[in-house]
């Protein structure tokens, strides 16, 4: 895995979150999914399915328990993609 792979993941997440949260606000790695973007559990689970399909990986939903920010979600996806 490379730096560009990580950037690819963060770019995808930011694009999709902008669409799902229906906001033009700047989304950064520090942006909180719940308190700042109001991403509820259903939206998050649907986003996870999209990410799984994009990268052909499996993301267990119980791995999301501790995820609060975009950066933490990107780190999780990157880790699983690296191990795949």
């Amino acid at each position, binding site marked *: 895995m490379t730096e560009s792979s990580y950037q690819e993941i963060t770019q995808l997440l930011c694009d999709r979150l902008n669409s799902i949260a229906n906001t033009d606000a700047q989304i950064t790695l520090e942006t909180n999914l719940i308190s700042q973007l109001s991403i509820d559990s259903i939206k998050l689970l649907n986003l996870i399915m999209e990410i799984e399909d994009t990268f052909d990986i*499996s993301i267990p939903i119980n791995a999301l328990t501790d995820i609060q920010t975009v950066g933490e979600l990107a780190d999780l996806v990157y880790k699983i993609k690296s191990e795949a």
Partner: protein
Amino acid sequence: MMNLLEKLDASAAARKALLPNGVGAFGIPIEEVYSATEARIGDRRVLLLGTNNYLGLTFAPECIRAAHEAIDKEGTGTTGSRMANGSYFGHRALEREFADFYRCGSGIVFTTGYQANLGTISGLVGPGDTVLIDGDSHASIYDGCILSGADIIRFKHNDMVDMEKRLRRLGARVETTLIIAEGIYSMLGDQAPLAEIVRLKKAYNCILLLDEAHSLGVLGETGQGLVEKTGLLEEVDFITGTFSKSLCSIGGFCVSNHPQLEQLRYVSHPYIFTASPSPATIASTRAALELLRKGSDLRKQLWSNSTQLYSRLQDAGYVLGPDPGPVIAAILDTPQQALLLWQNLLEHNIYVNLILPPAAPEGKSLVRCSVNAAHTPEQIAYVGDTFAKLHDMVCSNKP
């Protein structure tokens, strides 16, 4: 950061925003129950279309008599768990009867249907294992998976292409994967594509658990559920279900031909650390199971009522769940429309279930009817006519 109590306040505020003016759609007070189809809510005598009393057996004389006799003979409760306090004759007899009903080697009775899934799933899988579940699974399945510590992977509801894709991605981990599906899904009333699930389960060499909570008593000649309707009983590894719907009591079960099922009694916390079902509960369940097994006439009536109401609502212009059946969900565009329909039905003395996001799948808002075999043709016609009368008023309501 909010403290613990402030978090509950925030949750209460969100609920109040959805249900203004003190509307008590959830946990509605039922003052008196008159029969399998009628009760009193406030000062209204209402038609019950919001129960899961599919065969209409809540007042079956055989079940009431059995419960009375059990209380007289064995008292009101067992006062403890089966592990510590012992298994009564009735517990063991009911387990044998369920195993016999499903032609399985053994069966286990749990204190609630919720615990049947919690206990079976958490007993079968653990950390390092995987559960592959339908996205519309009941909370008891999600909670059982979480309790187990296994990795939880969802597939899109009833989407077998999606399911196979996720099985393939698991690679060697499929060897320790449990697939879970439901006979009838409680929100939209649709059935699992069991033949295809079984094909994939065999192709990938997984274990399959099917929850027949809503399909027990409803599907199949003798009421076994989807396994009987599809002729796939032998292909499903574990079957769970509840007593609280067609069997009109409370409790749950798991049956299997795998002898390892018995080990669940020693590893499953939801089985071990809870009081066992009361004698009256077990006795009425045993009586109801006997009625269910020979209840093909009740099932015919149930399906006649269900298809009649489904067609009437469809003709009236409602968007419904995909499969006709006893669970009939009208899918509304907004929570406000669903609430408006629910309130107006109650004003017409009809009680149904209101289901708002996030409880319903895909953020849908539902008004759900549960039909039963005891509903008369006149009652079904009245419900259908009332839905039809309200359609334009409700659906023209835009935010």
